[in-house]
C-alpha cells in the first residue's frame, strides 16, 4: 500500500475513534435543514434542492475549517509529529494522506444533509447532476481546506478552535447560504460576492439546478483561493522554521 494511503488510513482511524469530530461538522447543516428548510421550503422542489445545495456548502465549509484548523493545530502540539519526521519518508505522503482523509470526512459529513433532503423534503436531483454535485464538493473544498490549514499552522490549538468558530458562521450567513438564491437581505446580497462561500455555493446551485453563476463571485472565489494558498504556505513555512529548522 503506498505510504500516502497508509497515512490516510491512520488519520481516518484516529478520527473515527472519536466520532464526535465528524458529528460536529455535520450537526449545524443538518440542524439547519431540519429547522429551516424542512418546515418552510420543503414543499417546493426547486427551493428545497437549492436549499440543500446551500447546506451542503455549509457542511463542506465547516468540515474543512474545523478538521484542518483544529486537527493540524493539535497535531503540531503532539510529540508524535516530530517522531514521524524521523521515519524514512519526506513530507509528501503525510500531507497527501491528510488531504485524502480530509476529503473522506468531508463527504461523510454530507450524508445527514443529503438523507434529510431526500426523505423529508421535495428536493430532487437527476443522477447526472448528483455526480456533478459530488465533483463540485471536491472543488469547493479547496478554499476551505486552505483556510483550515492556514488556521491550523498559524495558531496554537486553543486559539485555532476559537478562530474556526468565529470564522465559519459569518462566512455562512454573509455568503447567503441561509437564504435562497437572490432572496437574501439586501446588505447580504451586496457583501456576499466578496466572500468565498458565495462563489462556492453558486457553483453548487449551478450543479444541482438552473442557476446562472454570477461571474464576480467566481472571480472573487479565485482571488480567495490564491490569497488563502499564500496564507497557508506562509503559516506552514513559519511553523517549519520554528520547530524544524
Amino acid at each position, binding site marked *: 500500500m503506498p505510504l500516502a494511503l*497508509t497515512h490516510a488510513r491512520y488519520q481516518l482511524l*484516529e478520527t473515527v475513534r472519536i466520532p464526535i469530530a465528524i458529528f460536529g461538522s455535520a450537526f449545524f447543516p443538518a440542524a439547519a435543514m431540519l429547522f429551516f428548510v424542512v418546515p418552510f421550503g420543503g414543499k417546493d422542489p426547486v427551493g428545497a434542492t437549492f436549499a440543500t445545495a446551500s447546506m451542503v456548502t455549509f457542511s463542506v465549509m465547516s468540515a474543512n475549517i474545523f478538521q484542518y484548523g483544529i486537527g493540524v493545530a493539535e497535531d503540531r502540539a503532539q510529540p*508524535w*509529529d516530530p*517522531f514521524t519526521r524521523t521515519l*524514512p519518508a519526506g513530507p509528501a505522503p503525510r500531507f497527501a494522506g491528510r488531504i485524502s482523509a480530509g476529503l473522506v470526512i468531508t463527504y461523510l459529513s454530507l450524508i445527514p444533509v443529503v438523507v434529510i433532503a431526500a426523505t423529508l423534503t421535495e428536493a430532487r436531483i437527476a443522477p447526472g447532476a448528483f455526480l456533478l454535485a459530488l465533483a463540485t464538493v471536491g472543488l469547493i473544498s479547496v478554499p476551505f481546506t486552505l483556510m483550515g490549514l492556514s488556521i491550523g499552522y498559524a495558531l496554537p490549538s486553543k486559539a485555532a478552535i476559537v478562530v474556526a468558530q468565529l470564522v465559519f458562521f459569518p462566512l455562512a450567513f454573509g455568503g447567503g447560504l441561509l437564504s435562497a438564491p437572490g432572496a437574501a437581505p439586501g446588505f447580504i446580497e451586496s457583501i456576499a460576492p466578496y466572500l468565498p462561500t458565495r462563489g462556492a455555493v453558486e457553483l453548487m446551485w449551478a450543479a444541482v439546478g438552473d442557476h446562472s453563476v454570477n461571474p464576480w463571485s467566481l472571480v472573487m472565489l479565485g482571488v480567495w483561493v490564491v490569497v488563502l494558498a499564500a496564507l497557508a504556505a506562509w503559516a506552514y513555512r513559519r511553523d517549519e522554521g520554528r520547530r524544524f529548522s
Partner: protein
Amino acid sequence: MTLARADRVSRRYGSTLALNQVDLDVRAGEVVGLLGPNGAGKSTLINLLVGLRRPTSGRVELFGGDPRDPTRRRRLGVTPQETGLPGTLRVGEVVDFVSAHYPDPIPRGELLDRFGLGELVRRQTGGLSGGQKRRLAVALAFVGRPGLVVLDEPTTGLDVEARHALWEAIRTFHADGGTVLLSSHYLEEVEALAQRVVVIGHGRVLADDSVDAIRAVVGVRRVSLTADDLPPLPGVIRTERVDGRTHLLTSDADQLVRDLVTSGIEFRDLEVRPTSLEEAFLAITTAGTADTADTADTADTAAAPASA
C-alpha cells in the same frame, strides 16, 4: 565506519547558544552514552543527528549523508517521547504504521513479544501504563531493523524492573552488531550499557572517554565550610565563594578534611557532598581558572531552552 557524525556543530536558538562547536563520532558497533544534565544540549544534538533540526554552523552526517534526506534515515531507529503516542490507536496499529515506512520491518508479533507487549496488541495506547508506553516507544525504534538506534532518555520514569528489561533489549541489539546512541542524565544507566561516554554541558563536549575514566572524574566531592581565610590546600581542584560560604571541590575529600583540621584555622558548618556531574565536569574543565563566582547557576539558566 562512522554512522553518525557531528563536525564542529553549533546550534543557536535566538540568543541562546545550545551547542557550541561540538564534535562527535558514533562508529558502527558502539554503544555511546550521552551524559549531561537537563538543558546541557543533549536533545539538541540528537535532534540535529536525526534530521529534525539544522545546525547553525558545522556539519552533521548520518550514514554518510544529510540526515534531513529521508533515504539516510532508512537504517535509523528513533524513540518517540512516551507522551507522544497517538492515544486512540491500538498498539498493533501504531507498530503497523511505523512498519509501513521500512522495506523489511520486523514482524509485529515478534517485535511486541521481544518487548513484552504481545498481550497488548489490541489495546489503545492511551490506556497503557507509563511503563508500557515507554516500552512501546522504545520498541518502535527497532521496527525497521535499524543499524543505529538513537534513544533519548529511554528509561526516564520507569521502575527498576522495567528499566532492566529495556537494558536487556538494548544489550541484545548491541550483541547482534547494532549501534546505539543513548542520552541520559543517570550515570548508572550509561555505565550499565555504554563503553564510551560523551559528557555534554552548556552546549560543549566536556569529556569523551571510557566509562571508567568518566567514573573517576565523577568521584569529585564538594567540601563546604564557613571560614575567614583559607591557606592554599593541596588537592583542591576549584574554589568557590558564595554568600560567605566557601566551597572546595576535590577528588579526595577525606584528605582535604584532615588537612583543614591540621592547618589549625577556624571554620564551622563543615559539609561534604557528592557533586553533580555538571559540577564535576565544570571543575575539571575550568580547573586553573578557578576562584570565579558560581558559574554553574548562571550558565544553567542560559542553557535551559536547549531541552525544548
